[in-house]
């Protein structure tokens, strides 16, 4: 039956349609159009992805680059012995009793004198209002300078003092005359005075090294806030992570890859590692809070706790990378070592491990980079605290309160003054620079030392 129907098929289809391969019929055209649409959608998706990268980086750079520059006012400050050292004994203890309030009038006088020397009138501002152009942090800066060497009292020193946050914002486009009119912290007259100072060359914007070295500052002094403590805290945590995660991760991988027998227990470990890699980071924070702080009594906001939590978090990453790199060492190496009489342990430690080292280091650096950018678990173990004191040198410093780079970013986004948004973006740039450096090292290591077997 089927043969019959098959032979009859052409006649059943009726008269043959005239088609040419060179002329596209409607259906082919539709199919080609669908093909082109699909392809375009793919291209759009890729473009969107690339644009997202560019947009993200550009938005951070645009907002943050200005934080590396800061407005300073140059004044000649006369370190008046009458105010700073009434007894005239140059006794450090006595001078230390003069608080920052004692230094503020010196700055005020210096500014008024400088204005008079350059022929700038106060124009409706009191001397006190004029002095508000200077950051509230400046007296502390001056006091530190004097305390460093008390014999400077009586001299006149040229000082670059920070301008107040609003004045700085004026030159970065954040504050305008209109917004100043509504602002309690700054008036349009003060901005005009700042302009005059700028014309006289007393006020200028320049590179701000203290952004990288100064500690955090309070809500009202965004101009003085820096990343010093945060960078130090992050560095301490990375030291802890490196010191714990690398040996633990490598040891665990060696066991699982080279020695572990195929049994339930090994399976249990493997399942645990792959699950830990997928646990949300905030859960590690809860673990840190419950176990390290609450149960073991370690101090809050300390780099050691942060380091321990991040170690547990990066361990799966390092183990996975190390195992992959151990696996890529060909079995012939092991066989050759065993063949000349090495023990299993010797073959691993003398031959396999050195060959796998570049891969292990690459994985470790990538794990560290991940840990450096992690924020959520650190929020729970108290790293959000406001810390102005630098932690001391290790090992004591590991147990003292510190901040961390990503947490500092979060901290600054929670403050009222818009100047802190600029700071937060600047801190992100610093963080990203560290990450780029770490990833670049990882890539270079991989390119230079990785062997293809």
């Amino acid at each position, binding site marked *: 039956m089927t043969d019959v129907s098959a032979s009859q098929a052409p006649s059943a289809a009726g008269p043959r349609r005239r088609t040419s391969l060179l002329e596209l019929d409607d259906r082919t055209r539709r*199919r*080609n159009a*669908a*093909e082109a649409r*699909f*392809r375009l*959608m*793919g291209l759009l*998706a*890729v473009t*969107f*992805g690339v644009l*997202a*990268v560019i947009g*993200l980086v550009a938005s*951070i750079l645009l*907002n943050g680059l200005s934080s590396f520059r800061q407005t300073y006012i140059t004044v000649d400050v006369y370190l008046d012995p009458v105010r700073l050292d009434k007894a005239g004994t140059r006794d450090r203890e006595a001078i230390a009793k003069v608080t920052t309030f004692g230094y503020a009038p010196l700055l005020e006088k210096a500014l008024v004198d400088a204005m008079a020397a350059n022929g700038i009138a106060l124009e409706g501002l009191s001397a006190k209002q004029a002095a508000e152009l200077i950051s509230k942090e400046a007296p502390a800066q001056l006091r530190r300078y004097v305390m460093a060497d008390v014999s400077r009292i009586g001299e006149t020193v040229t000082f670059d003092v920070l301008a107040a946050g609003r004045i700085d914002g004026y030159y970065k486009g954040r504050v305008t005359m209109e917004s100043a009119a509504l602002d309690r912290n700054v008036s349009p007259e003060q901005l005009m005075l700042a302009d005059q100072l700028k014309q006289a060359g007393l006020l200028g914007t320049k590179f701000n090294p203290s952004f990288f070295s100064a500690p955090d500052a309070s809500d009202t002094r965004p101009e003085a806030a820096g990343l010093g403590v945060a960078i130090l805290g992050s560095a301490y945590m990375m030291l802890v992570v490196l010191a714990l995660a690398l*040996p*633990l*991760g490598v*040891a665990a991988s060696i*066991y699982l890859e080279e*020695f*572990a027998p195929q049994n339930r227990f090994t399976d*249990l*470990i493997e399942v*645990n590692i792959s*699950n*830990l890699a*997928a*646990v*949300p*980071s*905030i*859960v*590690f*924070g*809860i*673990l840190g*809070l*419950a176990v390290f702080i609450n*149960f*073991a*009594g370690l101090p809050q906001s300390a780099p050691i706790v942060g380091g321990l939590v991040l170690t*547990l978090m990066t361990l*799966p990453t390092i*183990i996975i990378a190390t195992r992959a790199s151990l696996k890529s060492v060909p079995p012939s190496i092991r066989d050759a070592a065993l063949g000349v009489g090495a*023990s299993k*342990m010797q073959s691993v430690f003398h031959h396999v491990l050195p060959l796998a080292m570049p891969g292990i280091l690459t994985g470790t650096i990538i794990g560290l980079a991940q840990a450096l*950018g992690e*924020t*959520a678990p650190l*929020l*729970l173990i108290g790293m959000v605290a406001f810390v102005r004191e630098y932690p001391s040198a290790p090992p004591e410093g590991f147990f003292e309160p510190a901040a961390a780079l*990503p947490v500092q*970013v*979060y901290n600054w*986004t929670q403050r009222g003054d818009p100047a802190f*948004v600029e700071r937060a973006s600047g801190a*992100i740039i610093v963080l990203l620079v560290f990450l780029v450096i770490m990833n670049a090292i990882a890539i270079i290591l991989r390119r230079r030392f990785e062997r293809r077997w």
Partner: protein
Amino acid sequence: MSVGILIAIVLGLAIAGFFLGRRRAIAKAGGDSRRLHSLPGYYGQSVALFASVPALILMAAWLFVQPILIDDKVAELIPDSAIADGGSRGLVLSDVRRIADGIDLLVVQDLLNEADLQNMRADFTNVRSRLGEVGVALGANVSPSVFEAAKAYRDAQRTGATLMSVFVLALAAAMFAFSLLRIKPDLRARNISESFVLSLLIGSSLVAILTTVGIVGSLVFETIHFFQMYPASEFFFSTTWNPQFRGGSELGILPLLWGTLYVSFVALVASVPIGLMIAIYLSEYASKTLRSLAKPAIEVLAGIPTIVYGLFALITVGPFIRDWIAEPTGLGSSSSSVLTAGLVMGIMLIPFVSSLSDDIINAVPQSMRDGAYGLGATRSETIRQVILPAALPGVVGAILLAASRAIGETMIVVLGAGAAARLGLNPFEAMTTVTVKIVSQLTGDTEFASPETLVAFALGLTLFVFTLGLNVLALYIVRKYREQYE
């Protein structure tokens, strides 16, 4: 003796042990190392390992257990009368710790000597102002019993530290002597030190299990604690989230869960089509040059910390959506919204989805493509009708993994989604998620006695169960799929 010095001493002992052990082995063999069972270095290594590792383990265990024991002991010293209304033993205990630390500071700065301290009594001396001198601020005046507890706490800590030094050093020295004295030429030193190293390797791989036990243990333990104070049915089925730090809070998880799922849904809607199309385009259409440029560029997104995305949501995407979409259409006026957080999270997930799908699409055998082309299908028809159905289980697995990522994501929602717990459909409104509330309930001073704090553990457990379930499901699907082609 401080922990750092103790570690240094033990490590010094280990290094000395290595050289002494080596030398002793060679000397026992009469200078002829061929008469030894193992290479001389192994004799040294066994001494070094035996001298250092047990002592260090003892020290770590001691440091872990001591605070717990001391806390228990000191807690007994605090009479019930010393516990203020609304306070708890834990609060008093933390006061005790601060007073003890303050006394330490006083002693270090020579403002107080030990003999005076013994005679010092809280009912005669103003302890609060004395401690204020060294920068230890106390909330209230110190009652005599608390002060005595603080002294006891301090004594116990010092005794503990001394005992620890003694025991650790004794153990190190004993193991040192034992392993050094047993050296003789036919001692199987290599086997001994190798099995020692192997046990260390096994111990390291146990850390993974311990971590899981720690996570599950702390979550479950504190959650049980929470449910003793707050009814479980309220927690799971109440639709209000309204924590009050004076008690009487309503802690229903439903609004948080809704916010989490809503944000994750928006994120997946944004990321899955784009990620999938990127994977398809790059593996099926793109030229080699484009692929080698675009793939790493998009993978940059995967290496960026989530706080960066959070800031991006806060300062760029949020205000943009508010000013250009939400306010003109009158749908919302807040810059943090479900849409903001969802879109930014979607961007974060794009590389995740695309690289996973890329692997899966590349795993589809070439023969299936060739077969479809041979039948006259266009490329897009091949992809839609052959490759995608074949890759479907893998893609579903990838989407589930992305969903588990989205649910556990914290920083983007903290900065982008807002803090108002709300059950609503409008994506331009601020809503909140489980992770945001974990952060807000546990940040700052935490006191582990109120349901408002402990609820974070119940939320954490919910989150853990959710993400774990999704991951297990995803891995199951992916694994099942892989078996078909390999």
